[in-house]
């Protein structure tokens, strides 16, 4: 290469405006390794992002008897917890989570809520300020050891410390705790109690029935781990949960006409189901579409009566981090067996429980959506390892192992808008998806919300796109994040900041991590590398407790890509993507052939003269000039045209050609076009450059340049591209893959960009947006009615 270029020189033909600015040292180290930001690798969590050889985690098994009092809306419970201390430290006390205390009259949630009076204070707001009448929170009857002896305990709001008479031994210690409690179940629709509406009851005034969804309903062990010690940050309502894994046996006593939906597998179906229901349930195991086990008619009938006796449903669930259930006489129940490649259970039961108010939407879609989620997520992570996956309609959106509470009720006439339909599907995908993150890949939600929400939202997007090609996905596509990331840095918080007091509308709120992962998958890493690494992360940390560094490290370890620049930019800063294509300058090779070069030069000289105003005006106004009138004033230079080709020129050219090798001659005569593109980074985030070159003949070609092009200078970068054809236009990020917030500086030559407002007005705004748009279902019905 060295030889070729020594013989050639370049002739500059500048077509664009301006010349690249001189570069200054602007290295902000965007490609520096995430060394100090991440915890030091150790024998619990390795540098490659895998659990280390000394990785440990605790375990808590539960044996619980619980009863729901349908007349008083109360829950009574007794549990025996077997807590295993596998840590290398002896423990002299343990912490137990008491999340119901968030609705205790003395709860900090009420105390720390801010409010002001105004002329427009609504009745609701007034009640929120004054009403502490609900007697919520755990009433602890006793805390005892295995022998029945009382253990000292201290309750700090939503956390309880149980002090042990002798410390629990390291590595082998086993503690048995017996706890008895009850609490008043909260009304989920009472805005005063909205701090934790994840569980509670919903009252249906029309039929006078209650629908219970019980969550955080038992005192549960807190996590003790290697990087946190005890995770006992108070439950304030927003930051969610993390818990140790264990085996559960739960006996649920409810009115005899209730149907229970629960984590785990029902152990005594013959005792609680009718013969008919048993038959249908058996049939559903091998069915290819959902089988109704309790129909809408049957449920509606039950709504009218009240059983006076009780039944106990016994469930077992192994290796779960939590337990939730729903119960109501209103439940319709359908089920379908699902086969998942490589799963430990040959048939996984996908089931849905919902009141009639959720039909026809739930009847048509819920169980199918559950099955679909299991298949898609299993493909991208690991085969679903549980025997059951349930979707319960409860006007909610919350996840537990093997069961989740969702929303999506149609209008009373059974129709629904597309908003409700896709909202319902999305919430089912999302909540069932949470089985994977964080129920199995058990990250700490209170500390790192994005680790489960971000990863789950990303997988949800994959599930949506595999359900329907034009699914209106909320987060995922890079362009959906643009309006938010456009906002100035000063009003945002990075994903990796953690504090309950900073209003984090960022992370899970607008799906920034989900979008970041999609960009990694589609644009930075490509699907093959990404999918493998993502699966590797999920498999390494299934049934364990990962931290952000384990995720970052695994993704690099398994793909061979250095992604620190990506994590740093997307997760640790509030920079956005705004890369500007500042200039495109064309360079043409000087062929050295006098026939070609002198002709071009001659044409240029003539063009200059033709444009010169004085010369043109003089041609018109002056019939003759001095040298034309008097031949004696002429000499050699009056007729000499430096652009004439002379024999000496030709001779020189022949000699020059002879001095070149064949490769050099080829380049010289190739007629290639050289374009230098100058980019500047205005948003802060460095990203790959995706370029579409559109040629004068209408054809186009795309090129992708990895982000490492910015490694020496992350403010400005230039690159030369060589083509056989002449360029007409260059577009940066033509497919909107990089979440670039300003498309206005992405094309060269620049195109005038209309604002959204101007566009709306131009397209006849009022006409377009003015009237109500048709809900296709009702319109279709109207049409049918006409015909």
């Amino acid at each position, binding site marked *: 290469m060295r030889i070729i270029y020594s013989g050639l020189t370049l002739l500059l033909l500048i077509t664009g405006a301006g010349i690249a600015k001189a570069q200054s040292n602007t290295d902000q180290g965007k490609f520096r390794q995430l060394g100090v930001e991440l915890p030091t690798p150790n024998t619990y969590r390795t540098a490659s992002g895998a659990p280390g050889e000394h990785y440990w985690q605790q375990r808590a098994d539960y044996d619980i008897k619980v009863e729901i009092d349908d007349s008083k809306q109360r829950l009574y419970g007794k549990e025996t917890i077997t807590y295993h201390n596998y840590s290398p430290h002896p423990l002299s006390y343990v912490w137990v989570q008491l999340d119901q205390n968030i609705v205790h009259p003395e709860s900090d949630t009420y105390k720390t*809520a801010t409010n002001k009076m105004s002329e427009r204070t609504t009745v609701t707001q007034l009640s929120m300020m004054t009403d502490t009448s609900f007697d919520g929170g755990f009433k602890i009857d006793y805390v005892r050891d295995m022998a029945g002896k009382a253990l000292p305990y201290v309750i700090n709001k939503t956390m309880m410390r149980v002090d042990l008479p002798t410390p629990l031994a390291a590595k082998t210690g086993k503690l048995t705790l017996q706890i008895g409690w009850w609490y008043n179940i909260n009304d989920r629709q009472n805005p005063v109690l909205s701090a934790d509406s994840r569980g509670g009851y919903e009252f249906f005034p029309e039929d006078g029935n209650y629908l219970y969804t019980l969550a955080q309903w038992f005192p549960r062990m807190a996590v003790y781990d290697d990087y946190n010690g005890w995770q006992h940050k108070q439950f304030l309502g927003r930051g969610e949960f993390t818990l140790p894994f264990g085996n559960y046996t739960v006996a649920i006593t409810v009115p005899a006409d209730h149907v229970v939906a629960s984590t785990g597998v029902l152990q005594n179906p013959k005792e609680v189901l009718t013969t008919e229901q048993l038959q249908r349930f058996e049939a559903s195991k091998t069915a290819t579409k959902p089988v109704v086990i309790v129909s809408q008619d049957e449920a509606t009938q039950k709504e009218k009566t009240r059983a006076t006796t009780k039944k106990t449903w016994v469930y077992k669930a192994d290796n779960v981090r939590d337990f939730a259930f729903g119960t109501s006489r209103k439940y319709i129940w359908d089920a379908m067996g699902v086969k998942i490649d490589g799963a430990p259970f040959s048939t996984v039961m996908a089931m849905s429980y919902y009141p009639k108010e959720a039909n026809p939407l739930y009847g048509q879609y819920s169980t199918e959506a559950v099955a679909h989620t299991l298949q898609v997520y299993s493909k991208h992570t690991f085969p679903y390892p549980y025997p059951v996956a349930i979707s319960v309609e409860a006007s909610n*959106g919350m996840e537990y192992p093997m069961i989740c509470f969702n929303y999506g009720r149609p209008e009373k006439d059974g129709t629904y808008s597309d908003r409700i339909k896709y909202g319902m599907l999305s919430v089912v995908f999302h909540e069932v998806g949470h089985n994977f993150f964080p129920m199995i890949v058990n990250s700490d939600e209170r500390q790192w919300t994005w680790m489960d929400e971000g990863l789950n939202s990303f997988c949800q997007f994959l599930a949506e796109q595999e359900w329907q090609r034009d699914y209106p996905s909320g987060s995922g596509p890079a362009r959906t994040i643009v309006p938010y990331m456009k*906002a*100035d840095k000063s009003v945002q918080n990075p994903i990796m900041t953690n504090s309950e007091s900073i209003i984090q509308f960022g992370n899970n709120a607008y799906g920034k991590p989900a979008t970041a992962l999609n960009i990694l998958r589609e644009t930075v890493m490509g699907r093959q590398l990404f999918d493998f690494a993502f699966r590797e992360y999920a498999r390494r940390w299934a049934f364990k407790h990962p931290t952000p560094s384990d995720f970052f490290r695994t993704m690099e370890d398994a793909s061979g890509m250095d992604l620190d620049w990506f994590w740093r930019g997307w997760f640790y800063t509030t920079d956005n993507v705004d890369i500007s294509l500042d200039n495109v300058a064309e360079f043409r090779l000087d062929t050295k052939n006098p026939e070609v070069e002198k002709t071009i030069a001659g044409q240029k000289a003539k063009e200059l003269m033709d444009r010169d105003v004085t010369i043109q005006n003089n041609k018109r106004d002056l019939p003759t000039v001095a040298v034309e009138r008097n031949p004696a004033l002429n000499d050699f230079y009056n007729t000499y045209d430096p652009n004439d080709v002379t024999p000496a020129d030709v001779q020189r050219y022949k000699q020059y050609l002879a001095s070149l090798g064949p490769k050099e001659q080829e380049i010289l005569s190739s007629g290639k076009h050289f374009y230098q593109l100058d980019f500047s980074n205005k948003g802060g985030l460095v990203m790959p450059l995706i370029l579409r070159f559109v040629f004068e003949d209408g054809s186009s070609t795309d090129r992708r340049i990895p982000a490492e092009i910015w490694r020496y200078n992350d403010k400005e970068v230039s690159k030369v591209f060589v083509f056989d054809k002449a360029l007409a236009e260059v577009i940066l990020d033509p497919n909107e893959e990089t979440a670039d917030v300003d498309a206005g500086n992405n094309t060269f030559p620049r195109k005038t960009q209309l604002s*959204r407002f101007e566009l709306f007005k131009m397209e006849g705004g009022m006409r377009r947006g*003015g009237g109500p748009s048709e*809900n296709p279902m009702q319109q279709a019905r109207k049409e049918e009615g006409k015909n």
Partner: protein
Amino acid sequence: MAFLTVALLAVCTVVHPIHLAITEIGYSDKEKALQVVHKIFVDDLELHIEQKAKSSGQEIRLHLNTPKEHPMADALIQAYLSEHFQVKVNGKSGNSIFVGKEYENGAIWIYSEFPNLPRPRQLHIQDDLLVEMYDDQNNLVNLDVAGKTGSLRFRKGYTRDVITF
């Protein structure tokens, strides 16, 4: 004003409901008007307008973006906006005109114009959209006016600000 790419946002309200609204403010020298675009979740806007009506004794259901959309929907939306989003340009109060609305995946885009306003040297903004019902409502305002860009994040307890150009 930079071209705004079309943004889709599904109503993905899991138990971390997204209480966020975005407002873009631009100024058109040609029209001598402030051009404002609000992007709000349909459910949130409906809730607030219906609640406000309830507290003055009326029962309204808006049914936005369905065939049953309330015939006075535009007026009701405009009334809500003019109460909860106000601007003063160079000390002069602006009055907004409802230009139109569009729906996209659970969000409503509302176009408002504040006509007959000079080029802003100083802009007072009051933004308390949706704050009555949601303590954690965040209202992002992205400005691209008089050559200056910037953002503000209004929320409960911080609903007014002034920008000087």
